[in-house]
Every structure is written in C-alpha cells, then in structure tokens.
C-alpha cells in the first residue's frame, strides 16, 4: 500500500540528513576560515551556499507535492511538517555560516585578536558546529531521547557567547572597535546556528510524540 509515497517520503527525509551534513561542513569551514583568516576558504563556504539553497528548494517542493497529492496523515503528516520546518532551520543556519564567511572575506578583515578573543571565537564556532552535527544525528536516528542533550549543549554555547561579548567589552583600544563589532556579530551568528540545531531536535520530538508544545 502506498509504497511509492512512503519511498519518496523516506528519500526526502534522507535529503535532510545530506543537507545537514553540508551545514555541518560549512559551519566547520567558516570557523576555520575565521580563526585563520583564510579568505579562500571563506570564498568556498560562500560558494557552497548555492547548493544548500537549491537543496532547500528541492526539499520544499517535493514535500509540498506529497502534501498536495498524497494527503499524508498521522506519523507521515508529522514527518512532513517536521521536514518543512527543519528545512527552514537548516537553510537559515547555512545563511548564517555564509554571513560569517562574508565578513571574513572582507578586505580589511584580520585574524581575531587578542588571544583570549581568538580562542573564544574558535571555541564558539566549534561548539556550534558540534551541536549541529549532533542535531543531524538525532534527526537521522529519530531518537527523541537524545534531543534533550542538545539543549544542554546549547546552554554551553550561550555561555561561550556571553563570555565572548564580555571579552570584547574589555577591549580598550579604539582601533579595535570595528573588528570587535564584527566579532560580536559573528558570535551572535554562531549562537543562532546553535538555536537552529536545537530546533532540529525539538522537531524530532514533535515527530515522535506528536506533542505540539515542541512547535513553539
């Protein structure tokens, strides 16, 4: 019964995992580009965003086609709703990685300094990337028990973000202000990437339990 429908639904579900892997990679690469001030790598992250956007559109189109033609219900309906929302979260996370790469790519962007700032930015980027990677694992396994762990990791990201802002506020050198503003933005972008990763986990909970509280 409805084999073709369920196969297509599974295929779209797998596309989310593939898209998640791309977001994971661009988050990692944008972190490296940032810390090393590697403009070529930043360019690669920016170029990669096009493929992510295409995937986003493809997933959305295929999901809407299934909704229109197959009238999914029950677990299938919840899965498609979750896919459409996760798709948005991943696409937004991809845009945030792109935004960071774009800042790095600016001609006057320099390696983050002093050391304490550089180390916090690096830690924050790595933590956001790890969180995204774990969120994609939770999605692939559809195991809502692991989703709770994402929230704890997000708390650690928020903490790193707060520490970075605090560190930037300590800077006395007036010449450091433009760079500090950019790094504050970068910090905010990483923090948002982590939020989108937590959303992925919440949507797994929604899919598994049907509890709409997770759609907040």
């Amino acid at each position, binding site marked *: *019964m*409805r084999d073709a*429908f*369920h196969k297509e639904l599974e295929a779209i579900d797998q596309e989310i995992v593939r898209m998640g892997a791309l977001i994971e990679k661009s988050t990692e690469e944008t972190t490296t580009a940032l810390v090393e001030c590697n403009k070529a790598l930043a360019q690669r992250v920016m170029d990669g965003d096009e493929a992510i956007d295409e995937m986003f559109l493809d997933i959305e189109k295929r999901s809407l086609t299934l909704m229109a033609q197959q*009238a*999914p*219900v*029950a*677990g*299938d*309906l*919840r899965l498609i709703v979750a896919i459409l929302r996760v798709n948005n979260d991943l696409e937004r996370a991809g845009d945030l990685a792109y935004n960071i790469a774009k800042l790095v790519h600016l001609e006057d962007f320099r390696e983050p300094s002093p050391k304490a700032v550089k180390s916090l930015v690096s830690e924050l980027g790595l933590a956001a990337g790890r969180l995204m990677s774990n969120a994609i694992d939770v999605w692939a396994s559809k195991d809502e028990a692991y989703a709770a762990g994402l929230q704890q990791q997000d708390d650690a990201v928020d903490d790193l973000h707060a520490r970075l802002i605090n560190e930037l506020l300590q800077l006395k050198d007036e010449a450091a202000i433009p760079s500090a503003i950019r790094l504050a933005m970068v910090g905010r972008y990483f923090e948002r990437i982590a*939020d989108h990763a*937590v*959303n992925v986990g*919440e949507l797994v909970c929604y899919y598994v339990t*049907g*509890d*709409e*509280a*997770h*759609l*907040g």
Partner: protein
Amino acid sequence: MNTVEARPAEVTPATEPPVFTVRDLSMRYGNSLALKDVNMDISPRRITAIIGPSGCGKSTLIRCFNRMNELIPGARVSGEILYHGQDIYGPGVDPVVVRRHIGMVFQRPNPFPKSIYDNVAFGAKINGYRGDMDELVERCLRRAALWDEVKSQLKKSALDLSGGQQQRLCIARAIAVEPDVILMDEPASALDPIATVRIEDLMQELKKDYSIIIVTHNMQQAARVSDETAFLYTEVDEATSHRWGILVEFGETSQIFTRPKDKRTEDYVSGRFG
C-alpha cells in the same frame, strides 16, 4: 525556539449527554461472531465516522444503531445500545419506532419509483403527519439542498434525477419524518466527486440539527467531514480462521489523523495496510 505551554491533548467534546451509549456490543450472524465488545458514546449534533478495512464490521455496527440487522435471519445482538438512556434492544421496544427516530441513508440512492414530491411526503403520511404537506416537502428539500434544482418539477419521477440528486432526495426523505439521528452507510461511494462534495457540505449543515453517523471507505472523507472517528479492525482466530470486527480506537478526528494512539490505527490511516 521558545517553548510554549502544552495545550490539552484533546479538545473537550460536547458536555451534553451522548445520543447513544454502546456497551459491550457484540453481534452474531448465526454462530459466527461479526462484531465483538464495542464500547463507545455517540455525541449529539456531531458527525461520527466509522472507518476500517473491508470486512471489519463497519456496516454491521452502523446497522445496530437502528436495528436494521434484525432484518437478516439469524442475526443476534448482545450488550446494549442506549438511545438517550433507553436500550433500543430492550423488551417492548418497537424497531419501527426506533427507525423513525434514527433514519438511514444507504450506499446506493434508493428513491421510490414515485414523484419527487411523493418520495418526501411518503414517510410523513405513514406517520400520520397532519401539517401542511407542501410546506413539509419544500422544507425538507431545502434542508437537503435540492429544492432549487427540483422546485419546478416536483411531479417528475425521482428516478429521472442524477445519482447525486437522488441521494439528496433520500436525505430529504429521511429528515421528513423528523428523526434525531441520521445513519449514512457510504452515502457518497456511488457518486462522482462533485456530487460527493455536495453531500459532504450538506452533512455540515445537517449536523446543526441532527447527530450523524457515517460509514465510509474513504479515509479522506472521514478526515474532511467528521468530528469523531472510530477505527474498526478485524481480529482473526488462527485456529478456526474466524474473523470479527473490534473497535481499536475512537477519538476526535483530528487526533486520529495526526496522533493516533494505536499502531494499527497509524498503519491503516497512513495506508500501510488495508
């Protein structure tokens, strides 16, 4: 993502007492069990859909509500169906009176081979209706969303109407005796999609005044029209290969189609079997 406070899982159903209370209802044809231990309450002025795979006892169940099964020799009912608190299978209860309160519309439109007018007036006449018959016929045809199409040809044979019109005429005929409940056994399965939509729209109008129970093969129809859904499924005795229907899950339609509690309901509504 901000967490919102969880809403109550179920929409609270109407607080009015149920029209029907079904308790431990089993149904046998001869020695063969057809339906086993059904328990459910039917809410007033709501549409209750009965869904399930072929042979699960949907039609058997709906026919229990107005004692139609008794017309089949050897049919036996155990348990009880309380209609506003009174057991319709109780001693001294006249099935004809039961059927006047609980009307039925069948899968194939079955108008009498008489005029449109007479089809509607017939039941009322038999029941000794003393009011203005023309007014009753018009009112029922309007209620059944058929009046505008037939008002200039009331003397025409009902058999000249299209299938969809005939089915609406049968609904008009059913409501002419002022029932309380309308049972519909796959009322749209012989109709084209446009005629089906008209029947579905009509049901939404009718539920303002009547409680409706509908058996449907079409799950999307159940999802579209009903407030509550009952999922019946077939149980098999491996030793004897005997099969009978059981009520697996009964709840708000929105819950059945988004968060069914039972795996069998989930598999059936999402098309994994059946």
